[in-house]
């Protein structure tokens, strides 16, 4: 089950940055990509993200399976947009340059193509940075990083616990599901959909019970060690901030500022080449 992206140890500038910087960078970058619809900003962010990805020394084959999945998802999304609203771009940009008339209400317009390209770029702009964030940050550093940007260390601990117990729960699930399959409870295609859902409950119930037991054990252990007594805590995995971290944070603020500035310059979220 190694199909999920996870931390990859390498020696690069980006790996050396603190988790706090990367979390900060990732959040600012996401917000910047979310608010703007300016093609130039989005393409710029995407290219810059690709450069950073290159610097991180991560390899294409480490991400290709995830990218293929994402592209499939995006393709379905874009087809969906066209099927439901072939004139969305015309509505947004206010002009109509027809390239080809198809059938019924479907025709290809430059505006629609441009809108769909922008939609794709909006997603693409975030991908390199999200990949960097996941693949260059040591999960043990997550909790410390979240705490540093002002999130309560209790919530940080929840995230740390989630990351720590994902493999255990995965193993539990596999064991229970195999045991139930041996008893003839299947989730496969040979069952009707409703039966499949019902059968899944037979696997999930033992899983829930074992998880609840786990919650009891862990919370008792934490209580015994006096967790939560103090307002603050220190982190074994926390790294001190260096020069590169300040550069990173300033850069992320600059990108968000550009994104906001372009909205003001354009007088809206869109860059309109049609007028």
């Amino acid at each position, binding site marked *: 089950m190694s199909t999920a992206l996870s931390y990859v140890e390498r020696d690069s500038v980006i790996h050396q940055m603190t988790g706090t910087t990367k979390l900060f960078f990732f959040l600012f970058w996401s917000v910047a990509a979310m608010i703007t619809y300016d093609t130039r900003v989005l393409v710029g962010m995407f290219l810059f993200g690709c450069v950073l990805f290159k610097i991180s020394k991560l390899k294409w084959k480490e991400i290709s399976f995830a990218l293929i999945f994402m592209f499939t998802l995006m393709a379905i999304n874009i087809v969906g947009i066209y099927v439901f609203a072939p004139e969305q771009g015309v509505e947004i940009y206010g002009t109509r340059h027809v390239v080809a008339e198809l059938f019924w209400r479907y025709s290809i317009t430059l505006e629609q193509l441009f809108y769909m390209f922008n939609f794709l770029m909006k997603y693409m702009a975030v991908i390199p940075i999200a990949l960097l964030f*996941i693949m260059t940050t040591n999960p043990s550093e997550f909790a410390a990083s979240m705490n540093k940007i002002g999130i309560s260390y209790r919530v940080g601990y929840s995230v740390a*616990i*989630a990351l720590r117990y994902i493999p255990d729960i995965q193993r539990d699930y596999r064991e229970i599901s195999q045991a139930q399959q041996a008893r003839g409870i299947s989730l496969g295609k040979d069952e009707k959909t409703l039966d499949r859902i019902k059968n899944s409950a037979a696997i999930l119930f033992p899983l829930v019970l074992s998880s609840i037991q786990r919650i009891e054990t862990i919370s008792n252990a934490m209580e015994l060690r006096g967790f939560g007594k103090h307002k603050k805590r220190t982190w074994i995995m926390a790294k001190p901030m260096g020069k590169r971290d300040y550069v990173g944070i300033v850069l992320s603020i600059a990108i968000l500022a550009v994104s906001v500035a372009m909205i003001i310059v354009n007088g809206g979220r869109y860059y309109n080449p049609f007028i």
Partner: protein
Amino acid sequence: MENKNQLSIKSIVAIGIGAALFFVLGRFVAIPSPVPNTTINIQYGILGVFCVIYGPVVGILSGFIGHTLIDLSWGSPWWSWIIASAVFGLIVGFAKKSINIESGNFGGKQIAAFNIFQVVGHLVAWAVVAPVLDILIYNEPIEKLFAQGAFAAVSNSVSTAIVGTIILLAYSKTRTKEGSLNKEN
């Protein structure tokens, strides 16, 4: 002394384990549905169960963290749907008080309450929150979003109704019934 405004240790752990369960079920367990290329999301059934046992704070945070981890493991977060998952957790979490599963009573009335909360939760999450955020962020066509949202709300409600109800029913049997002990004279 424990401060009331802070998360209790049990909630902290429940959020973490709940998020991990949500992640494992949402990421690795794919139950094929009759519609091609779509799978049934059983993770919301489990999230519903956790909400009823542990309340709204655990619901909102495990939904948020679990869904963020799922999206990140694919490479990029889709915030509008992540927030919708959190909203679902929040709404179903309010069912904790009216159901009181720890009392061991989970009969017709409680089953109805759970299902009303979860259907409302799914409707608000997928037919209101997710599409509205998608319009604000991506300016996607309204027709597409509401078609998507309606499909998600219906299929998630059905799977949550089945999975959630069965598990809560079984769970309630493991609790000691309120008033099951009589004082002997």
